[in-house]
């Protein structure tokens, strides 16, 4: 069923806690400036890591929550609550006057409360202590962030958590849009959150040989999507949320509308647990176009999944060519992961926010650190320099995942 009919989905609020900005405004300024948030990590045991780099967010939980509350919130939930609050404030939503049974929460997260899990294992295995914190289950469970958001705003409709690895955030946003479209709800807070910058998580990713080698001269340039000298992904942390509303619900209360969410495509490779397929990715982009009722010629910008792994970038490039044909070469495609890193379960939500905010501002964010082109990656990746003063009517955001869940979102300008 096309998302456009019969109930349209408006994006009325945006919120982010990201490695390159704790507000949408700051994030966009840094994207235009091509500023990377990837840096040497300051975490315990970093000397035992091959690649002690990451895109950490400039975020302190104690600046937002009092001590008793902090105990119950893993870093991932702290960031989710702050980003969701930004989206609520931006949308000027007051849940006190809403029918809260017709409001919901939809969150994507790959690893949930990873810091709590890491700390718990340290206590029981390294310290050989029995002092596991009583809140360990409640802070580490993957749905904790969604639950707290629901509790804070008294949202009594669906409270959902999606865990599809690196596409979790996009799935959470897309499924939320579907719930509004189907008529179950009128308002959804949807997004993603991830806080994976702990030793245990970083070590596990390193063991897969998917993490970038730090750039010796400039660690901030270590993530190089689509470049010949790309060496892998760099993990990042943060949260991004959108407030989604049924169109007439938004206009009736005079809400400012950032964009219309018109397309959502969801496919599964069903092939290999890590290796992506051109077919699966292309099918997801086509499904998104179909649900938006758009021809591929209508898309003006693609925020790529662009992880900077050898596999992904070549496969995604081929998939884009398959969907867009000859027009692929004239279509700006960029990977903002070159600046904010890979936020795993939050990536799809953050990049959808970036796509919407870019469309509103008429900017195309660049792929940074792309000085050496790869012959297998020959599209217009907007290398090194943002474009401004551009008219964008429709934007696509790609999210692909280990496990093979491909999710693609399309937003269109409001008029």
């Amino acid at each position, binding site marked *: 069923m096309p998302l456009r009919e019969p109930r349209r989905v408006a994006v009325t609020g945006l919120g982010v806690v990201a490695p390159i900005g704790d507000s949408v405004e700051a994030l966009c300024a840094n994207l235009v400036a091509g500023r990377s948030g990837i840096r040497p990590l300051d975490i315990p045991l970093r000397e035992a890591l091959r690649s002690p780099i990451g895109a950490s967010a400039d975020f302190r939980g104690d600046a937002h929550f*009092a*001590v008793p509350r902090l105990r119950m919130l893993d870093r991932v939930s702290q960031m989710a609550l702050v980003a969701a609050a930004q989206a609520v404030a931006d949308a000027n939503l007051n849940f006190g006057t809403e029918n809260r049974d017709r409001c919901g929460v939809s969150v994507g997260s790959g690893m949930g409360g990873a810091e709590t899990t890491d700390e718990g294992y340290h206590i029981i295995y390294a310290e050989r202590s029995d002092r596991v914190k*009583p*809140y360990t289950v409640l802070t580490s469970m993957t749905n904790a962030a969604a639950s707290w958001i629901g509790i804070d705003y008294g949202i009594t409709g669906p409270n959902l958590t999606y865990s599809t690895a690196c596409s979790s955030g996009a799935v959470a946003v897309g499924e939320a849009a579907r719930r509004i479209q189907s008529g179950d709800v009128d308002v959804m807070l949807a997004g993603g959150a991830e806080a994976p910058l702990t030793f245990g998580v970083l070590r596990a990713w390193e063991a897969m040989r998917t993490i970038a080698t730090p750039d010796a001269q400039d660690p901030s340039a270590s993530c190089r999507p689509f470049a010949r000298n790309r060496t892998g992904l760099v993990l990042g942390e943060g949260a991004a949320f959108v407030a989604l509303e049924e169109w007439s619900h938004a206009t009736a209360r005079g809400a400012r509308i950032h964009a219309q969410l018109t397309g959502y495509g969801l496919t599964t490779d069903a092939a290999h647990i890590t290796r992506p397929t051109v077919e699966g990715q292309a099918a997801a982009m086509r499904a998104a176009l179909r649900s938006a009722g758009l021809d591929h010629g209508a898309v003006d910008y693609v925020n790529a999944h662009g992880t900077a792994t050898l596999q992904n970038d070549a496969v995604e490039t081929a998939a884009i060519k398959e969907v867009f044909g000859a027009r692929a070469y004239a279509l700006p495609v960029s990977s903002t992961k070159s600046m904010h890193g890979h936020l795993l379960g939050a990536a799809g939500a953050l990049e959808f926010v970036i796509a919407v905010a870019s469309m509103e501002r008429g900017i195309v964010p660049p792929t940074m650190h792309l000085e050496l082109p790869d012959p297998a990656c020959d599209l217009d990746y907007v290398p090194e320099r943002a474009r401004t003063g551009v008219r964008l009517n429709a934007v696509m955001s790609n999210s692909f995942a280990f496990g093979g869940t491909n999710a693609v979102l399309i937003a269109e300008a409001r008029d």
Partner: protein
Amino acid sequence: MSTLETLQDILSDEFNLTRERVAPDAKLAALGVDSLDLLELMFKIEDRYRLAIRDDVPSDLTTVGDLVRFIDRLLAAQSKAPDSGGADRHAAP
């Protein structure tokens, strides 16, 4: 320092409370201390007194005064059995 004063120290830090509110007749629930908080609080109490709380925390601890009496009882039991291990059981091997 009395047991009450020690509890006032810990609770005012951990729960953003004034020391005055941590009075003997104050209900723990009213101070924002629920059953899981109480379990975590026991770690702090163990550290402060070098105690090992081996038994389950009684479910009828409802006021600050109940908690004071519970700790005093443990301290009295420990002084009668000085080799009971104390907080050393938490040391790394």
